[in-house]
């Protein structure tokens, strides 16, 4: 999914992670986490007509995603890419309460992640998507009203189910990549995105692979550029310190 997606990513990934890998995209607000996930999935799909992907958004609406991606020149291939808008669905069924935090009401999200596309849909055939993005892990976890220990078990179960279904997943995490969270150890890969402000007049967006099990990859950060054709990987970032 990575090497054959956005331009330049093949320079960072020397091989393709095994199918069913779970990769986190971690970064602070405004670092293009969602855009990167959309860009990777959509550009991969444009080149692989038989593949399908689902993007699950829990807090931001589909409309907002589409508007933002359009502004970045990222287009979604019709009949291959579908955004499941949990944010709007939640509002549709319960605009004023938080009953989804009850575990028994929560299961539908797990079911939705693994459900084949509808029988009547344009995607048809009951095909399972083999690619998935979840936006975001923070929003997903906020749906649980349980202590940290139980949450950790829940997350292990969640990742295990994704692997079992061999769904290659991108999980967006909002936060400081330097702050360790237990989930970093549960997933196969961690990609950090950020803004290098070493030169305040010229801040630069970057992407760096922190971890990728079973896959040779570059350790150095690369520039993440917004171009007319969407996102592209630029040159290695010189003088970057962490």
């Amino acid at each position: 999914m990575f090497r054959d997606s956005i331009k330049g990513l093949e320079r960072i990934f020397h091989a393709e992670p095994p199918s069913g890998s779970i990769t986190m995209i971690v970064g602070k607000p405004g670092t293009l986490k969602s855009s990167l996930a959309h860009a990777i999935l959509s550009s991969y799909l444009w080149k692989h007509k038989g593949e399908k992907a689902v993007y699950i958004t829990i807090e931001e609406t589909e409309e907002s995603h589409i508007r933002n991606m359009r502004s970045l020149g990222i287009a979604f291939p019709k009949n291959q890419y579908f955004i499941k808008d949990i944010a709007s669905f939640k509002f549709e069924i319960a605009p004023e309460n938080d009953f989804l935090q009850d575990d028994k009401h929560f299961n539908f999200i797990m079911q939705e992640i693994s459900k084949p596309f509808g029988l009547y849909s344009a995607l048809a055939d009951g095909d399972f998507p083999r690619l998935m993005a979840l936006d975001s892990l923070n929003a997903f976890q906020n749906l649980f009203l349980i202590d940290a220990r139980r949450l950790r078990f829940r997350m292990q179960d969640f990742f295990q189910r994704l692997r079992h279904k061999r769904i290659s997943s991108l999980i967006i995490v909002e936060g400081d990549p330097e702050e360790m969270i237990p989930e970093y150890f549960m997933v196969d890969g961690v990609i950090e995105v950020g803004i290098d402000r070493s030169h305040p007049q010229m801040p630069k967006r970057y992407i760096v692979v922190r971890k990728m099990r079973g896959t040779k990859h570059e350790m150095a950060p690369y520039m993440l550029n917004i171009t007319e054709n969407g996102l592209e990987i630029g040159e290695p970032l010189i003088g970057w310190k962490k």
Partner: protein
Amino acid sequence: MVAKKYRRTTIELDVNLYKRVKALAVEKDMTLREIISEALEEKLAQEEEENDAMNSDFLRENPLTKKIVRTMETFISRDAAILLFIKKCESRNYDPYTITREMVTEEFLSSLCNGIRHLSDVDNTECLKALKAAVGGF
């Protein structure tokens, strides 16, 4: 009469099971496809009954509700379908146990499709068509 559509598939059966099914097919003068289809239909119906029992009593007690929710399930997950149906009933002061055909208006079905479209790529026209068919049309 609308012709049934079939999809070709390949399954591997235990040799003895195959022989027994084949013998049954000959005995009942049915094709292998008919025997297997019948068995799968029964299995699905049984699973659905068990799921209904676990999930919501109203699915067992109100056939109309069951038809609607089952159709919704072709587009979205079971739990999402049940949640959406209950919430749309609540907003109209309908009781899912006693909702009748007269209460199920096109506007009610449209409101279900409006919720479904957030989780499924089915378009509203197809969704409404399927739900209308499930309740016997208007």
